[in-house]
């Protein structure tokens, strides 16, 4: 079993987001970068498959050398080898094409991504990558059980879940539920030591252009001060929601 887990290098969830003074570039100063949380659920699912039936797990990222610590962390958690496609991740479409160009001859049985990255929230790479590789695609995947080539898959739908059946190879875009939060693997000292010796291959990008560019960013407008209402006067809240906010 060959599993590819796509890893996005993103600002930690507690990050305050800042941009350059002309609002054209994300300001990474003081930001801690982590494995995209959605990808972590996928990586742990891959580890469980490896432990149950045996598998090699490759992690891949599109990014400059500064993203390598994130790949090393994935190796420390338990991936067998890492690949960094040496290009700036410009937009979802080009990232999907770059990974597809790399993966097309590798015969992965299972490709796992996060359902989106928590920075740009595009949700573009998983479905486009699956389509370029002609694989079935399950988005918002919250359950995966394998029995040989057969997969039982659960995905989130609006207000519930759907159970699906398919046959490998396929691509799932995961999130919490694929494994539980408490099951997430954290690198142990032994894993960190071993990760230093595991292969991290840097490959040149294929020639893929971005299909969109970011002109600039905007920050949300600051909220006006919160109108405080006395706990003994809840009727006033309803009155304000009616007459001022005009929602009820």
């Amino acid at each position, binding site marked *: 079993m060959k599993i590819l887990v796509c890893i996005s290098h993103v600002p930690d969830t507690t990050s305050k987001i800042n941009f350059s003074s002309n609002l054209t570039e994300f300001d990474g100063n003081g930001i801690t970068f982590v494995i995209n949380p959605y990808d972590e659920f996928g990586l742990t699912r891959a580890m469980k498959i490896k432990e149950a039936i045996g598998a090699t797990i490759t992690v891949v990222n599109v990014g400059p050398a500064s993203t390598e610590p994130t790949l090393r962390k994935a190796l420390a958690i338990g991936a067998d080898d890492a690949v960094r496609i040496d290009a700036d991740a410009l937009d979802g479409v080009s990232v999907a094409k770059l990974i597809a160009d790399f993966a097309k001859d590798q015969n992965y049985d299972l490709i796992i991504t996060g359902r989106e990255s928590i920075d740009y929230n595009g949700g*573009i790479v998983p479905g*486009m990558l699956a389509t370029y590789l002609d694989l079935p695609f399950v988005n918002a995947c919250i359950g995966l059980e394998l029995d040989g080539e057969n997969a039982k898959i659960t995905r989130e739908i*609006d207000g519930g879940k759907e159970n699906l059946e398919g046959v490998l190879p396929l691509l799932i875009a995961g999130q919490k539920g694929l494994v539980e939060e408490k099951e997430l693997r954290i690198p142990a000292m032994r894993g960190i030591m071993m990760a230093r010796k595991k292969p991290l291959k840097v490959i040149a990008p294929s020639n893929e252009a971005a*299909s969109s560019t970011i002109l600039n960013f905007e920050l949300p407008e600051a909220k006006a001060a919160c109108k405080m209402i006395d706990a003994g006067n809840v009727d006033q809240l*309803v009155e304000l929601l009616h007459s001022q906010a005009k929602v009820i």
Partner: protein
Amino acid sequence: MAILVYTESWNGSFKKASFEAVSYASQLANKLNTEVIALTISAKDDASQLGNYGASKILSITNETLTSFNNQAYANAIINAADANEVDTIVISNTNNGKSIAPIVAAKRNASLITNVIEVPSSFNPFTVKRKAFSSKAFANYTTNSAQKVITITPNALGILESNTTAHSEAFEYIATSSDQRLKSVSEEKATGKISLTEAEFVVSAGRGLKGAENWGMIEELADLLGAATACSKPVSDIGWRPHSEHVGQTGIAINPELYIAVGISGAIQHLAGVNASKNIVVINTDPEAPFFKAADYGIVGDAFEVVPKLIEAVKKHKANN
């Protein structure tokens, strides 16, 4: 070149997000002097109502292989409809189903894909639109020169615009392909009568301040009274008091309802990221220093077990008088 909009339905009825999508497509079409073609798949609702939002042509697919949702087959159907009608822009709602179709459509049509869009384009040459990014901590203006585009729009962000277009309806035939059946739907588990979180206009949400799963009765009662969806914070779904599907926040569902009521949630940055696009935020918390009050429009410092029952009574009284 026309604009195609996929109008999603649930159990045969159009979703509100679909009317928003047609309204959005019609604003694009007005600017570009072209027409809006709406595509319905297995909808039982009268499709001609889509004219009320600006569709001038309606293509309806009724094919038994498409009775239940299948992202590959639905994407193929949208691609066929686009190919047959000289379409250059496809509009899809950014719902769970929409998100699982749009990348397939974009990849097969070699189109640019811009998701989570929250405004009409600020320019058409080059095509420039605003979308949410950094889990609603910021917005980004994206531009593309690609002739083929797929745009997914955020539910609840753009509103519905009435039009009185006379829509011409016709059946559209879909021929299934072998790739459609690679994934088989076995069963669905859906809480009946529940309001979809991403599309809800009102959301009542609660956190660890509620102290236990058994205390959610009053949250559900308030939600029912307001016609709201229920939601929860991340710790609550991690502990298992509420299902993951109710988790709103940075790593859960991002929402932007008209009214968000947060009970017993302190307002960590990760939670705010998923909810701060809500148009009105009410925070009820025992701690006057809770960071959520800084992001709220209305706040009550108090014990949820006293304030929420009072709020239920106040809403009942308001409803009786209005």
